[in-house]
């Protein structure tokens, strides 16, 4: 483990740089995060941030996207972009010997992108084709439907991918405006991990970031989402399925909420691993579904708490009912002392695997910096987990997770008794349906909007 170090500094223009030095292998992981994402998409133009990210990895002014791709890959580099609601994450890796020219390429393209009409046209067509291709991905479709159904008109319902209606409306001026308003020193974070140290990296970054704008307007925080009462089923009809995708969601928690860490522990026990309740009951005991799990989302506002499984069509009503019952029991009773001790032991001891590569050590530091959280938010994770008690978990669950207000998405094939059987779910307030191809249009009929 010799030669490892963890450093952070701020460039002269005010860009924070987080560095994890580890000389074990001659490669460097590079991450650049911009604090702007799909929440900044102009009204009716969902997908703008994603198209901007696409063009920000298509070469700087004066360089074609073809030349950019060639140059990056000739250096033994990879570079991709991912857009969430609050941030764009550009990530890649490169052979250590080629770090300097690689940073020159990718930061040049990010800070002064070509933003050419031709590239936008290509990116728009690519984005539309991507939406079409995703019609093959049932799990993605169900997840998309769940977000729209759960969040309704709230910005968290938006898809960073945009829709078949919004993408054609996006103009070059939208991208230019988004870049000009939000890409500046206050919105940028740079992370490096691997065979690189400050002495070699700092001069390169100082030079490349020397002209970064000093402004960079923060994207306004979204309003708090509201939870509609009752259990509502959205049936997504897709022909010729042999199984259903069941996704159940309710509101989760804010990242800064004191309940966050207790809920992380609670979720781990409920649906976070092979021994969790969902896997144990839904898969091992009943044999309903190969996979079953849950996820606790958290952001500046309450994100989604979701659970999923993929039972056969015949088993879907029983499996869905079982998942809801398990959720009720968990939300109301929390964890037992033995279950908590088991989960704490796992989270504490497995932390070694959260730190066994330089990139894994860097990522939580970047996430903490992105959200303006103290470094101890993740660095002190193990200690926080150790201190969590059964009553804390019960209180956190009662405060945050409401099993009486659920969005239940079932993607399957209609025509059998499936929809009729779903109507028998306890506490059901509503059952609506949508044809799967309508999801690509970015809108589903939503009773609250009528």
């Amino acid at each position, binding site marked *: *483990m010799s030669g490892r170090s963890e450093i952070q500094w701020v460039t002269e223009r005010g860009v924070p740089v987080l560095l994890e030095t580890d000389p*074990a*292998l*001659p*490669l460097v992981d590079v991450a650049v995060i911009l604090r702007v994402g799909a929440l900044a998409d102009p009204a009716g133009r969902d997908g703008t941030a994603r198209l901007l990210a696409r063009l920000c990895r298509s070469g700087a002014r004066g360089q074609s*996207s*073809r030349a950019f*791709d*060639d140059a990056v*890959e*000739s*250096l033994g*580099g*990879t570079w991709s972009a991912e857009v969430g609601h609050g941030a764009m994450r550009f990530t890649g*890796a*490169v*052979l250590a010997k080629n770090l300097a020219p690689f940073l020159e390429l990718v930061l040049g393209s990010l800070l002064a992108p070509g933003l050419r009409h031709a590239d936008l046209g*290509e990116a728009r*067509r*690519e984005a539309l*084709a*991507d939406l*079409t*291709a995703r*019609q*093959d991905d*049932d799990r993605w479709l169900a997840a998309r439907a769940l977000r729209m159904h759960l969040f309704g008109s709230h910005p968290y319902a938006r898809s960073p991918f945009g829709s078949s209606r919004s993408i054609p409306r996006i103009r070059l001026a939208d991208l230019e405006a988004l870049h000009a308003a939000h890409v500046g020193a206050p919105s940028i974070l740079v992370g490096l991990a691997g065979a690189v140290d400050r002495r070699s990296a700092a001069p390169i970054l100082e030079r490349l970031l020397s002209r970064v704008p000093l402004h960079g307007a923060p994207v306004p925080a979204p309003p708090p989402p509201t939870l509609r009462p009752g259990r509502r089923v959205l049936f997504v009809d*897709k*022909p*010729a399925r*042999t*199984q259903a995708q069941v996704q159940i969601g309710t509101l989760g928690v804010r990242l800064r909420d004191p309940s966050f860490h207790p809920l992380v522990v609670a979720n781990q026990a409920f649906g976070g*691993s*092979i*021994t969790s309740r969902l896997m*144990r009951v839904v*898969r*091992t*005991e009943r*044999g*309903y*579904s*190969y996979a079953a799990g849950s996820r606790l989302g958290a952001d500046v506002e309450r994100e989604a708490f979701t659970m999923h499984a*993929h*039972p*056969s069509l015949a088993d879907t009503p029983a499996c869905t009912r079982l998942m809801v019952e398990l959720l009720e029991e968990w939300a109301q009773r929390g964890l037992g002392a033995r279950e908590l001790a*088991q989960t704490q*032991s*796992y989270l*504490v*001891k*497995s932390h*070694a*695997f959260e*730190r*066994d*590569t330089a*990139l894994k050590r860097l990522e939580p530091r970047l996430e903490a910096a992105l959200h303006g959280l103290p470094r101890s938010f993740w660095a002190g994770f193990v200690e926080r987990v150790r201190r969590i008690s059964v009553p804390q978990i019960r209180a956190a669950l009662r405060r945050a997770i409401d099993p009486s207000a659920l969005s239940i998405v079932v993607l399957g*094939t209609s*025509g059998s008794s499936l929809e009729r059987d779903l109507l028998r779910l306890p506490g059901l307030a509503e059952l609506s349906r949508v044809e799967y191809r309508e999801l690509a249009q970015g809108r589903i009929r939503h009773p609250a909007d009528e």
Partner: protein
Amino acid sequence: MARSSLPAFAPPLSFGGALQLHATTLPENGLRLFVLPDQSAPVVSYQTWLKVGSRDESPGKTGISHLLEHLMFLGTKRHPLGEFDRLIELAGGENNASTWTDWTQYHENVPASELDLVIALEVDRLETLGVSEAKFQSERDVVVSERRDRVEDDVDGAASELLFAMAFGRRHPYGWPTLGWMRDIQGLTRADARAYFRQHYAPNHAAIVVAGAVEPGEVLRRVHRAYRRLPPRFRPEAAWPSLGPMKKEQRRTLRFRTPTPKVLCGWRGPGYAERDHAVLFLALQILTGGRSSRLYRSLVRERELVQDVRMSVVPFEWASLADLWLSAREGKSTEEALRLADRELHALATKGPSEAELEKVKNRVELGFLGGMETAAGKAEQIGLGALVTGDPCHAFVRLDELRAVSAADVRRVVRAYLVDPPRARIDVQPSRGRA
């Protein structure tokens, strides 16, 4: 049991220069042990590689290797259902398994202090595995669910399964899916699983790989103490079944609920240990590896005919299969895309890559290789795969050297020999509007 003497390690092998790999075989039962001390993190990856996979099955009983892999987690006389996973998680570890044509692999990644626990659990399930009829049936349902997820409702999986059957034949061990045909899975019995376990799950068909913060001598003492009592079992050596040449292109149409047409082509290729496999792998990188690759640039970026183009070659022991997947954009033709792809294959076979192009893909491959070696689990995986499929636990570095040495002439020769001259299997996926 009488005391038996501790075997010695052979002189260590260099594992990429910086690390040393220690290897030995237990004299009592033929179990092979590979230990790679690596102090870069306080963790250990413990992997059990068994030389049994779907190629060892017989028609009508396909999927038994994979189903047995599932059953191995369902409890023993000492540890009831769920206990294996619970103990590993209590120790801060994670575990899983995978099955393919030539091998089955089980792994546990745990803090280094938990090595004894893993050894005890692994030996226990080899000795006293016990699955009730009810649990067997429930787990068979889980595998049926896995198959629905990966094949019945997945266009890539459905096409890929058909391609292997066409390229090798439905009665060839590489021609049936490792998941098994649905009808076969549903017909498998607990007696089938028990017989298969007895035949194949023996120490002389296995290799243990331990990578991480360990001391080799200590690992050897513990493994020897725990495993030496397991008896070897002998089985007929698996032999490569004769496979007649593919005389002409084989073509099938697959109707599937998918938004756009797709085409999948497959060519038989060399076994994983052969140098030509490495050359072929590099050639496929030139064609579809990254945004600047030939086919991505031509078909996705410039012509906008397809949304997705991929090529890969499987790392099988006896023979491989190289495939090409083209997923058309809405309103575009796979015929045109395939025609252009064929043109590019011919160009590569005739003119070869430029030096710059070759250098670019070598850099890309090197980056991928380094990325795969970052963790203890990644290193152990390379050792296990090399040991079982090529006979050389350090094969990853042999292959890296082979990849670095590939010339333009090599690429021309291999593309012609495997992708241009021989006929291929071809599947046209047509969007179905019906319900089947």
